[in-house]
């Protein structure tokens, strides 16, 4: 087995921003003067400042990871509408280029002149905490010293996608700066390792996979960030060995996993249910990869 000695890391800073693009054309452009690009710029500037990276001349060791569940759905809907109404050559080539990449990542890199490793990962759930795993892997394996992990979701709306014209676009992104733990606030949690998997789906195999995951727990403290359904299933399987933490919920009752995890492990975390440290197991609400973070509080 490969012996990996991960570099201890910390969640140095985070921002949780909503954005609103009022005018239709703002929905589809990422120039320098739209509310979305301004929000991305504000987030990147704040995070680089918090990490004392604002003056760093060399940003090749800083990277950006983007994650989303639905991506830029409104852009695609807009393209689809113009295609149906006006034919194939009505497609704006600028928009076309956004249908096969995740533009917020580029926007963040350009905003901060960040030229380290960057990638765009798509998740099975909104605001998935899995993005932290990938950021920690890059730092742990020496590909980067710091990673900005951005989780981006556009609000679902009841209007048909091709009614995007004239409708404001709203959404949220939650961005975290991950870096060396000695740059974190004194007393903040230190992340020493991360694990990914299994991939869970609703259905009869879910409890089997949860059982396999929690069959052999060490003697440390174990938190379970999961829905009530999974809390009950895991309690049956492990005899209530894990301490359950319910995820925060949005106004429409959707679980907000990543922000909930940041509350436990983020720059302002004070221990709480973690005590002096342990493992946090994050189980996705329906579909997605389980992630496990081992951490300690100094």
């Amino acid at each position, binding site marked *: *087995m*490969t012996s990996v000695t991960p570099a201890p890391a910390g969640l140095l800073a985070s921002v949780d921003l909503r954005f609103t693009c009022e005018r239709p054309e703002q929905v589809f452009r*990422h120039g320098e003067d739209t509310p979305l690009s301004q929000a991305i710029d504000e987030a990147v500037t704040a995070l680089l400042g918090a990490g004392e990276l604002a003056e760093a001349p060399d940003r*090749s060791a800083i*990277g950006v990871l983007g994650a*989303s*569940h*639905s*991506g830029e759905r409104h852009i*695609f*809907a807009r393209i*689809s509408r*113009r*295609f*149906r109404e006006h*034919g*194939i*050559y009505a*497609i704006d*080539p600028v928009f*076309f*280029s*956004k*249908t*096969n*990449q*995740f533009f917020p*990542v*580029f926007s963040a*890199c*350009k905003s*901060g002149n*960040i*030229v*380290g*490793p*960057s*990638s*765009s*990962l*798509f998740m*099975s759930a909104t605001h998935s905490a899995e993005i932290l795993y*990938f950021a920690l*892997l890059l730092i*742990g*394996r*020496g*590909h980067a010293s710091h990673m900005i992990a951005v989780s981006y979701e556009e609000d*679902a709306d009841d209007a048909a996608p091709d009614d995007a014209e004239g409708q404001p676009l709203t959404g949220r992104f939650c961005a975290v700066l991950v870096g060396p733990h000695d740059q974190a606030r004194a007393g903040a949690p230190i992340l020493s390792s991360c694990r*990914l*998997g*299994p*991939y869970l*789906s609703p259905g009869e*195999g879910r409890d089997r*996979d949860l059982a*396999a995951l929690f069959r052999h727990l060490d003697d440390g403290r174990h938190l379970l960030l999961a829905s009530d359904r999974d809390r009950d299933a895991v309690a049956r399987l492990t005899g209530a060995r894990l301490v359950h933490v319910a995820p925060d919920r949005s106004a429409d009752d959707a679980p907000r996993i990543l922000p909930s995890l940041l509350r436990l492990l983020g720059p302002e975390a004070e221990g709480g249910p973690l005590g002096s440290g342990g493992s946090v197991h994050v189980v996705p609400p329906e*579909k*997605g*990869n389980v992630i496990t973070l081992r951490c300690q509080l100094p």
Partner: protein
Amino acid sequence: MQDPIVVTGIALNAPFGRTKEDLWSFLARDVRAPKPVDRFPVDGCRVKTAYLHWPAQDTATLYDGTVATARAALQDAGLEPGRRIGFALGSISVADAGEDDTARRDGAVNGLGQHCIGRLGLSGPLVHVMSACTSSAAALFWAKLVLENDDADAMLVGGADRIRAVDFAGFNILRAMDPERSRPFHGRRQGITMGEGACFLVLERLSRATARDTEILAVFAGAGLSCDAHHATAPRCDGLVAAGRQALHSAGLAPSDIGYVNCHGTGTVANDAEESKALRLLFGPHLGSIVAGSTKGFTGHWLGSAGALEAAISIMALRADHAPSMPWLDAGEGILEARQAADPDGPGLRHVMSNSLGFGGNNVSLIFSQPQPETLRRASR
């Protein structure tokens, strides 16, 4: 103790075949002519041809074809679907403009990945990358890290895409397509020819592959990612240089160790010019002793799934100790300063590099190496 990541299976779903042997023999044949596109209206297009493959344009065909290819790769590796086998996919084919959005299932971009992991009965991690033309190369990068972290016993990794009307229109509007067929690195190149298909590789830790006594196709020695942070569609060479240096560093190699570079080489004026500069900066005085070229003149540009296909090609070159040529280049017409054929008195191909660039300034560099007897002996202890 090091336990390298190795490649143990390859399968594809392409106009030229389904196996790695089909792929390699295809690259020894003459370049094909692309076919007229008949799946969506192309009236008024400057370019109306592509290397078509899928029998139908709908997402069901892509989904079924992707699953079949992934399953074939597992079979090539001698593996059955299992709980600790994960799935990493690079694909841009979420849906096409004008298409019913139900193809995206619950609205998730990773619907194709979800579909595959379910149909194949895998429980390992699912990783889905969409980063334009680097998507499946980036999927290989992530799968390697997942295995190195011991979060799976094997990763089924690859790409699958179809030629979408939105991309065909977009590249036409950008005048980035060659009216005849793509001629990467030619002095009078005019752009890409689109292609489509699926290609999957199986990655494992060497110790596990050795214990299973399965054939090891190559060692996945190193990988690097970067962003140009320059322009949404136009590349800048220093991004690829950074990714290449990261890949070399992670593989513990020097530029002079690389024998062949499979370039992104799309055939566009901008890409090939910047990539040529990048090779010059990355390899310096060693460039003249390295064979470099693009195979997109044979296969077409598979967009998000190109990286996986070209990783497979690079591995086959390593195994054959022979780099594919670029027969569309006549003497003196190429812009690359690297060699077009290996020095017959040289050391042979021990390490090869496969590079991918994409919109959004995305860059990925992958390095594959010949499995060395000493490495195999250490792993079998």
